[in-house]
């Protein structure tokens, strides 16, 4: 693709300067003519490769199912969206929740977790302080270790090797 683009650009540079200048109504060596030629030549040179990349992109994304496309943010950050399905079933839509992760969980996952939860669990609203939340969601750390009084605790097993998830109602 790159060769094709470069060949087209070379042809443009060799054959078109006079034609372009004539169409513009300016001398060949004028700034407008040179800028038009250079802009067209670089765009034509890069165009086939850039557009081939877009086509390759489409070939990949068009194969994603709706569910895969909706969950891509979770999947790219090592989060299991099935867990969030369970959380949505347990935490009422009008409730607030706090989310905690054990410190030994990979920092990328820990960093992505509150953002993905904030997006995925809407309209439930995340709050920073677990004591102010209606519910607490914790990953790899039982709610009892968060100095909270909780009830209705549910354990979610995402994967047999993954840390457990806990969802519990905070008793105020």
């Amino acid at each position, binding site marked *: 693709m790159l060769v094709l683009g470069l060949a087209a650009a070379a042809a443009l540079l060799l054959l078109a300067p006079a*034609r372009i200048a004539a169409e513009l109504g300016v001398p060949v060596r004028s700034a407008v003519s040179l800028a038009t030629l250079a802009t067209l030549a670089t765009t034509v040179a890069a165009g086939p490769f850039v557009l081939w990349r877009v086509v390759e992109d489409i070939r990949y994304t068009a194969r994603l199912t709706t569910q895969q*496309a909706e969950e891509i943010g979770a999947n790219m950050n090592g989060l299991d969206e099935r867990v969030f399905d369970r959380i949505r079933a347990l935490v009422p839509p009008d409730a607030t929740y706090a989310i905690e992760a054990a410190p030994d969980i990979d920092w990328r996952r820990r960093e992505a977790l509150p953002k993905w939860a904030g997006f995925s669990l809407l309209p439930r609203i995340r709050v920073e302080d677990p004591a102010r939340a209606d519910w607490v969601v914790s990953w790899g750390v039982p709610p009892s270790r968060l100095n909270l009084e909780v009830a209705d605790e549910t354990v979610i097993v995402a994967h047999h090797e993954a840390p457990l998830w806990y969802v519990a109602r905070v008793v105020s």
Partner: protein
Amino acid sequence: MTVDVLRVLAANGLVLAAGVGVLGLAGRGLDGPAAVALAYAAGAAAVGVVVPLALLAGLPFSLWLVGAVAVVLLAAGVARRRVAPPPPALRPSRLALVVWAGVIAVLALLFVDVLYQPLWSPDAWGIWAPKARSIVLHDALDAEFMRSYPNDADYPLLLPSLEALAYEASGRSTLLLDLQHWLLLAALPGAVAALVRDRVPALLVAALALALVVAPSLQIQAATALADFPLAVFVALTGLTAWRWLELGDRSALGLLALFAAAALATKVEARLFVGALVAVAVVLAWRSSRRTAALTAAAGAAAALVAVVPWLAWTRRHDLANYYTGGRPDRDGEESRVARAGIASVRLVAESLDPTSWLLLGLLGAAAVVLGLGSVRARRAAVLAGATMLVSLAGLVWVYLNTPFRTVDSYLDHSARRIVTSLVLLAAVFAPVLLASADEDDQASS
């Protein structure tokens, strides 16, 4: 999916209707495809500025709200009826039409791309899309929700408002939010053409249009649904309307200048730097020839800030919302000296702006046109407007990187530099044909 796409496009018909009204209010009519593109950009700006104000006033978001904004603006535009005759465009050549056909073909391919493109960028699903969903699902602005995003709680609401439109129209799917970005990308070449076509040869405008839609970084940013791209579109259009107002005395451009400036300010915080620099330079340039023009330019900038910044700032302050940089988070000690940081940031920002793998020739062409324009009598004021705005903005960005709370400035630059220069590259690029055409007129007059 087809029905959802059609519903999103139909909802954007409201945006276009709002834009037609805005152009009517400004005294411009719809005189061809380029004017329709400008109308869409103006509509996106108007809806993106007015809807957040309605939300701040406590109104719930709905398609009815967007429809009401569109109807009011359209009716006001039609009622004004004093549409000036369109400026005579320079004759389009056959070759220019062939290049425009290429622009449409590339946009068609990118349309298919965004239909299948999921929201994979962490900033898309981690900052902008949640706010769009919240606006719809909570039926209002929810301060508690905004507070749950402490790193970006006070980011403005233009993009979430436009994405909320797509979210609601598509039956609450997040998979078509990037269609809003594609629509702005599709409008950009035509909007630029509508603003420069009476001064710039048609083939040069067409060549720039093709470069805009093929430039890899613009394509990627539009497809990943980040706010830097809409910001860049509005900054570029603010620049061109400022040029029309100052250089051509185009009265219709003043209102559009205020609108696009407001839209930029309502998109991202750094617009305060870009728009502030642009308006300040424009006022200084105008002051030398006409106090009245300078005062009106300053008034347009002030009006934009009054509408797009002040109410939002008041609301975020009242609810104690901040972001990572202003929220008083502990500053980690940097490993480099401040001088080293400034040097690293300056070199990196300039390199990113000129990088042909991101922008093809857009950055280099813009920079060269500014230099050439400074040496030309006819192009000098426009070159100073674009060049000084870019220099002040670059200096402001370096200051931001100088004060970054990250331990090394490189990590921050890796994450943000390519995106943050988008507005400056696009501003330079859209000024390039104007500057080159004016400089050529100089040459032809002197020869």
